[in-house]
């Protein structure tokens, strides 16, 4: 018997590890069960979704996918493309505007820097619902209802302090000698930003991009508010239509399209886990 003292915690009173793993696996099963049930229901005939309790379908109906794809007012690829356009431009906007602001806060000295930084932290706590009525009025006056501008413009204006904060934290961890060396070599602030700092910030940018992807992909309130034309709908708005046609009880199709809507998020999660975990640990973002 070997004593493994894990980081010196607890005197090595060996607990049965088996019990702990059993507990952790059980929690994991509870956490995953809703998703597994959804995937399983997406390949069952609609009439057996609530009668066939097994996760492994007794009868299969893969036709849920093609039928669900075309069962809403537009074919599903329209919604996927709409969401993809909004998500891509939002990522570009956040990376652009937040990195500029973060560079100023982290690396430049100018009058009012501390005040502005405090304001930025303040806006992070500001509940968005207080702003929504006047912003809606503004977008209405600009004639931007039923366009993507209300969803995109805020991302190009660095309104999400979390991403700025994340990048500031990251940039502060880079040695200032880099900036000094660049200045001696004749770089102005813009060249320093573009040639020296930007390339080193890739991990922070990856975190920002993944979080932006997931939050914008799931975003429901703003599209609900600003988009009323079904051809402009994003994936969440489109999915919601299944609730209106509930009487038809096409559950299999609904779960099939639900899974299609979640698949990109799950994919991004698997691809970008490392950045995500690091990102929430440093900023408390979720």
């Amino acid at each position, binding site marked *: 018997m070997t004593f493994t003292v894990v980081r010196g915690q*607890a005197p090595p009173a060996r607990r049965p590890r088996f019990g702990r*793993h059993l507990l952790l696996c059980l*929690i994991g099963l509870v*956490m995953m069960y809703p998703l597994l049930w959804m995937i399983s229901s997406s390949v069952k005939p609609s009439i057996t979704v609530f009668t066939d309790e097994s996760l492994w379908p007794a009868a299969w109906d893969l036709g849920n996918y093609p039928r669900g794809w075309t069962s809403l007012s537009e074919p599903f690829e329209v919604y996927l493309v709409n969401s993809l356009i909004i998500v891509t431009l939002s990522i570009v906007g956040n990376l652009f*505007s937040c990195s500029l602001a973060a560079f100023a806060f982290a690396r430049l000295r*100018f009058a009012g820097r501390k005040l502005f930084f405090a304001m930025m932290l303040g806006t992070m706590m500001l509940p968005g619902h207080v702003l929504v009525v006047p912003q809606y009025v503004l977008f209405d006056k600009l004639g931007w209802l039923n366009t993507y501008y209300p969803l995109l413009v805020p991302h190009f204006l660095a309104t999400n302090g979390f991403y700025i904060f994340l990048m500031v934290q990251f940039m502060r961890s880079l040695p200032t000698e880099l900036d000094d060396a660049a200045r001696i070599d004749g770089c102005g602030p813009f060249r320093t930003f573009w040639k020296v700092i930007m390339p080193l910030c890739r991990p922070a940018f990856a975190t920002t991009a993944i979080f932006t992807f997931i939050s914008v992909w*799931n975003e429901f309130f703003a599209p609900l508010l600003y988009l009323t034309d079904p051809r402009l709908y994003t994936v969440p708005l489109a999915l919601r239509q299944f609730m209106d046609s509930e009487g038809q009880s096409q559950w299999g199709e609904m779960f099939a399209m639900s899974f299609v*809507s*979640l698949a990109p998020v799950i994919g991004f999660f698997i691809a970008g886990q490392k950045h995500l975990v690091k990102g929430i640990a440093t900023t408390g973002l979720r």
Partner: protein
Amino acid sequence: MTVAVRRQDRAGYLFLLPWFGGTLFMIVPFFASLYLAFTDYDLLTPPRWAGLANFRTMLGDATLHQSLRVTLIYTLVSVPLSLAVALAVAMVLDRGVRGLAIYRSVYYLPSLLAGSVAIVMLWRYIFGYNGVVNGFLAWFGVQGPGWASDPRYALSTLILLHVWTFGSPMVIFLAGLRQIPAMYHEAAAVDGASSWRRFRSITLPLLSPIIFFNLVQSLIASFQTFTQGYVISNGSGGPGQSTLFYNLYLYQKGFAEFDMGYASSMAWLLLTVIAGFTAINFLAARWWVFYDN
């Protein structure tokens, strides 16, 4: 020297240009909504000054009181509950479990999905009359109600949905637990402190700033819950107003009835409530949050 400083100033402001725009885009609406809160405004005709009329109406608006109740219950139950689960699971994982990364990922994934329409719709069926939960209860001979469609239980299903997202505070707690020097535990163990005693006197105080941070953030977010109530009730806040979250009612008032003056005064009431809770949090922090430096 001064020339160089001023050039730095100018560069700083140039880099902040988009951010200045964004800040204006928040500050102006902030005060505009304060003004609108004292007006009668339907978007078509210019706002008319109404004094305290909106606030007087709010005093007698039973639906508003119900939405406040729903939001308060949801917040005050689900936030502490999910933080407690997050902390408990983080402590189990922190003891050097093999396969930590896998467990962490599995627990964390739901946090990324829970805000989506797909999951809230799914919840409605899992907690439906014929749903998975009742299927499970049937093994024990219990016939459960249609949880999501029963006014007594509908909100509880959404509280469980919130607890399902304990993974994101858990990851933050895990990172915090890593920072606690092992020697504190060693020294206490040598002195004969029990594991409960070490939790109370070492882990909890050293983790308290992180718990505090999570608490403040979750409360602010939770007060603004919208999607869950909207999707599970298909926009109505039903059954029987049991999932009528404050922001859902605000949405109905402002953007279905276009009573934007009233919606603005509602927004400011909620802001006051959130600010109040946050202030209480910060005041109470003096007693239990411990900064080790």
